[in-house]
């Protein structure tokens, strides 16, 4: 199914933002808040993994039902998971389209990667001390 992906801040994202290697930060920024009817349509329960495909790649997140999100759109707390599929074009403003990406969502059996793993996939080296 196709959705409009909107990213933004949440309290939990802010609380964990100075500890980006923590499991709590990974859990928060890999959460995809969806309307419960959309979850029903996709056969998803709270916490189920989903594959989110955007214009420049795919990433696995977890779906959570939310009363705040309208049908047809999803909300993802700012962070490395959403940015893994966001395009870098800025339309000559310096600002990417952080709140207007069309994505496709399907259920998956894969688990979301850790932040370390996402960074290593792009050529980084995790620091773990």
């Amino acid at each position, binding site marked *: 199914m196709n959705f*409009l992906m*909107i*990213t*933004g*801040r*949440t*309290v939990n994202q*802010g*609380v*964990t933002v*100075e*500890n*980006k*290697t*923590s499991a709590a930060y990974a859990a928060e*920024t890999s959460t995809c808040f969806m309307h419960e009817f959309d979850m029903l349509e996709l056969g998803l329960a709270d916490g189920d993994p989903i594959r989110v495909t955007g214009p*420049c*790649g795919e990433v696995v997140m977890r779906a959570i039902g939310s*009363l*705040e*999100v*309208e049908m047809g*759109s999803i*909300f993802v707390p*700012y*962070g*490395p998971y959403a*940015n*893994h*599929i*966001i*395009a*870098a*074009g*800025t*339309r*000559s*403003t*310096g*600002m*990417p*389209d*952080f*709140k*207007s990406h069309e994505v496709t969502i399907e259920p998956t059996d894969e688990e979301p990667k850790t*932040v*370390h793993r996402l*960074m*290593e996939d*792009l*050529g*980084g*080296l*995790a*620091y773990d*001390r």
Partner: protein
Amino acid sequence: MIVKDVVCPFCGCLCDDIEVEVEDNRVVAVTNACELGMTKLMGEERMKNPILRDGNTWKDITYDEAIRYAADMLLSAERPLLYGWSGTHGEAQCVGVHMAELVHGVIDNTSSVCHGPSILAIQEVGHPGCTLGVVKNRADLVIYWGSNPIDAHPRHLSRYTRYAEGFFLENAFRDRKVIVVDIRKTETANVADEFMQIKPGGDYAVLSALRAIVRGKTETIPRTVAGVTREQLFRVVNLCKNAKFGAIYFGLGLTMTPGKYKNIRNAIELTSELSRHTKFTISAMRGHYNVYGSNEVNTWMTGYPFGIDYSRGISFYNPGETTAVDILARKECDAALIVGSDPAAHFPRRCLEHLADIPVVQLDPYPNATTAFCNVQIPVAVTGIDAEGTAYRMDGVPIRTRRVLSTGYPSDEEVLTRMYALMQGARS
């Protein structure tokens, strides 16, 4: 020991009424701060010493070695990028600008991915703003547009708007109306008197409709505009025109959505339309505690607020070309110095792919996502905890942050000053 009047170094509210309890040189309790501020003030997951990437392992190095590495990297680069700056104090930002000029690099701050579009709009039509104190004491109508302060600026409502006392308001909680405009029914929308829900991407159209109604061009308004009914648009304009003093606060819901800076321009023009009937102001909900300061420091030193390119020897500014995301996505820079931000967590992946290909030095107290792309990371003191320095609140008021702990970590300013001295020595 209890330290009073501590300044919280988290968001642009820069709350200056925090009490911190220190025992054995550790913060053990925080009073008055929100959850975000409290967690930051009590945070302990610091990096212990500078590190160097050595193939597929990390090696501990000294501050001298790390500073020398960074200076050499910037001196030998043809087009270095100096990015971040909103998570540090103004004194360090000053040194950053001098360094960028010396090596003919590009210096950009995080506003290019938050309120950069707001600044572009302000450059077109000006900024009818005011300080937070004026809003607290006078505003009887507050509009949050594309902004969710309960999550992003938790004390904005209690210190300045919804739950704040006002000197010129008899009963502020009763007399002050709050309107929230958003595409989601956020927590902030739940405490508003009026919630105007817009279809995604519809902000520009709704702002234009409101402007038309304020001007009396009511016959042109269709039955709904981007999901908002005609009746609600009229009701909102009536609330605005009947207010004695209105304040609009907008967030990334306007700067990151289609239209970007044109949305802000339209919102500022709505503010000036409304000011023909009553008194209205508009301001941005700035995110990092000193992102406003990075714009101030850059502007007074270079003439431009962000995205400044010194490759010509003089400052040149062209957002979309000289901004960090664009420079990284075009694979243009050949070295990067990151200070007080975490681009690997907040930039699109294409930018990170280039960060992996070039030498990167980061100044940050904590291991973060960008650490993985660093050749060297230098841990520094946290401004507002173990370093002091000037920060600018979201309304442009400079506030000196305080030091509540003494640790052995050098401040950003100290590290950058030593780096700059080495660079000056090499270039003289």
